[in-house]
């Protein structure tokens, strides 16, 4: 499909735009990493301002318009602020939700285990638009008249009504106050249903991000408030169904489909809307890149500590009674929910390379890259490291390609996710003096492909989340540097600077004993 071929280029563009936002906001506050949470935030702003407006809103053909006019004259410009916040936060919600959808599609975050979140997001689009469009009716101005007439004509394309809905808006005599009873009911009910549907939408993920960082909330709120006060939302002339609507200040963010009803036909717009809906609905089952095999539990090595259960970003692990050890628990993986990120393997206390058994088997592991295989690869890499400032780099498949950092003094390993790295591997690399430092990298900060890989790694390394990084080497020998797909050059510079710093540290040397546990230092000649 053409759109799938176009996606890599679009992905590259999105990454470049995100890099720009990184410069201004920093990786943690980048609003593009919090689009879903911003959608929630704007919804709350709409709700709060809506409560204020509803307090002063009157229903009725003339009363509705008059009450909206009166609100604009509230003291301290409170009415103008509330109306502006209500409208502009609704528009902002549409923008961030559409960007959220586009971004998830570009990053292919809708296949496999993510199908549930994707599918439950599709009706949210309809509910969001319905809630917003319905709100325009309430002011009962010329824009409301246009929307009422065009919506009626659009629905009349469906062969489900015994009489054309548009006959309700033939002329002024056709409309009465009861229409407002229905509209107010819908304007309260649809957003409530939208809220319920968003709750369903985030059900299958652990700790969903429904609140953006405070700085983003304050910044967004200030932006909306200034916009509301300096560009007030003003109603059109009152609706009059005996007079045609002429020129409109259309809200294109919500109503861009409306001119198409006239330009094409109501039926064509239905085909477009339902076609997009259908395409979105089947997207998770369209051909996608091959997913890695899911996590596997080894009951003999699982001690039931539940760290994998706590760390899994997609609630794919449950703890069940251990079949062989009475009173113990056993991790059980739900293959349908497993993202194959390996964060569980990184959290397992048995995934330590220091275990002396020949075939290293941990309690939970990834078949595509087992802990045993990783230990073998790292051991081989350490053997070939030469020169000054020898560094082992652990990276992530969804971030900057660390394989391109390989060199005489640099060994690099790509993991499904940074969170897949058991912290003990850092100690394993540094003990024995076969490397001088470890650089751990992964997705751009705040935007881990598997949601929590970066966070859990940082917390494990900081000693606030099990398993802790317990290295006896100096902490400056362990460096975290987040770098997205487009940030390879940035990562190279980061690595160069890090190696430069390592040159100024005393060189680690191999212990005399074969165990390789003792650490000694000698002054480097750098």
């Amino acid at each position, binding site marked *: 499909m053409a759109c799938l071929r176009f996606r890599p280029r679009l992905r590259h563009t999105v990454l470049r735009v995100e890099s720009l936002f990184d410069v*201004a906001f920093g990786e943690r506050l980048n609003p593009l990493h919090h689009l879903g949470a911003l959608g929630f935030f704007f919804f709350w702003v709409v709700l709060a301002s809506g409560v204020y407006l509803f307090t002063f809103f009157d229903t009725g053909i003339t009363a509705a318009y008059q009450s909206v006019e009166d609100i604009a004259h509230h003291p301290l410009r409170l009415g103008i602020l509330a109306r502006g916040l209500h409208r502009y936060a609704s528009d902002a919600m549409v923008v961030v939700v559409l960007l959220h959808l586009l971004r998830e599609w570009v990053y292919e975050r809708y296949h496999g285990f993510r199908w549930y979140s994707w599918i439950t997001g599709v009706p949210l689009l309809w509910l969001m638009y319905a809630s917003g469009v319905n709100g325009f009716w309430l002011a009962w101005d010329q824009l409301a008249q246009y929307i009422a007439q065009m919506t009626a004509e659009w629905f009349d394309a469906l062969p489900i009504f015994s009489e054309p809905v548009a006959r309700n808006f033939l002329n002024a005599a056709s409309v009465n106050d009861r229409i407002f009873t229905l509209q107010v009911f819908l304007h309260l009910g649809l957003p409530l249903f939208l809220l319920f549907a968003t709750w369903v939408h985030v059900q299958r993920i652990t700790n969903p991000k429904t609140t953006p960082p405070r700085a983003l909330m304050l*910044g967004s709120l200030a932006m909306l408030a200034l916009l509301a006060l300096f560009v007030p939302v003003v109603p059109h002339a009152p609706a009059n169904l005996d007079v045609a609507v002429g020129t409109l200040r259309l809200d294109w963010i919500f109503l861009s489909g409306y001119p198409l009803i006239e330009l094409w036909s109501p039926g064509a717009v239905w085909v477009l809307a339902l076609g997009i809906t259908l395409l979105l609905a089947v997207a998770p089952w369209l051909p996608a890149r091959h997913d890695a095999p899911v996590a596997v539990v080894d009951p003999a090595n699982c001690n039931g500590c539940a760290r994998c259960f706590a760390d899994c970003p997609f609630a794919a692990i449950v703890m069940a009674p251990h079949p062989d050890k009475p009173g113990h628990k056993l991790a059980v993986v739900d293959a349908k929910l497993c993202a194959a990120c390996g964060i569980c393997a990184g959290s397992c206390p048995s995934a330590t390379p220091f275990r002396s058994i020949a075939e290293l088997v941990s309690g939970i592991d990834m078949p595509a890259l087992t802990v045993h295989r990783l230990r073998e690869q790292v051991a081989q890499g350490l053997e070939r490291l030469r020169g000054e400032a020898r560094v082992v780099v652990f990276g992530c498949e969804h971030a900057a390609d660390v394989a391109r950092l390989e060199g005489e003094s640099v060994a690099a390993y790509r993991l499904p996710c940074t969170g897949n790295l058991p912290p003990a591997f850092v100690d394993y690399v540094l003990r024995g003096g076969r490397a001088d430092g470890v650089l751990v990298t992964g997705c751009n900060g705040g935007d881990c492909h598997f949601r929590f890989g970066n966070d859990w790694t940082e917390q494990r390394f900081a000693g606030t989340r099990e398993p802790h990084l317990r290295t006896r080497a100096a902490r400056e020998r362990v460096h975290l540097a987040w770098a997205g797909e487009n940030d390879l050059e940035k990562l190279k510079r980061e690595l160069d600077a890090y190696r430069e710093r390592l040159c100024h540290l005393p060189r680690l040397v191999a212990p005399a004993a074969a165990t390789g546990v003792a650490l000694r230092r000698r002054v480097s000649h750098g």
Partner: protein
Amino acid sequence: MGNVLRYIGQAVFYALFAVFIGYFASAPAYVHVAADQAVVKVSFSHGGQPVKPCRQRSKEELERLPPNMRTPMECVRERSPVEFEFELDGQKIYSVSAPPRGLSRDGASTLYRRLTVPAGEHRLSARLKDSVLIDKPNYQHAETVMLKPGQIFVVDFDARHGGFVFK
């Protein structure tokens, strides 16, 4: 200095977002009906006459029916489609056969069309035939109207009030 530049960068992005929302929330202007145009809405919701006339049941037929169903007249439920024609300034704009709604085709036939025309004097003519048992339209009305710019003129039909309603 670095922080100041970052705050400036953030302000620029917030401002761009605000400009985007502020602009597209009300612009560019959209012209639904041009200033020199008027609108004619043509619509009706009318049940056509039965496709067959009612028939008197014979005494024998009535006796064969259960007692509670012995109505003297037998009438079919199905209604005729409504044939409708509309002319503007002598030119035929619509010629529609509106079928009756409902699974048993016993509901009303309906139509709704919206037409934008230049303001000024126009000759409107409508004809309607609501029975398959007749050959020519049984309702018709023609009127010359002066449409003001922006005026909405409705051509409706109400059989209880004698047929077409031009208003």
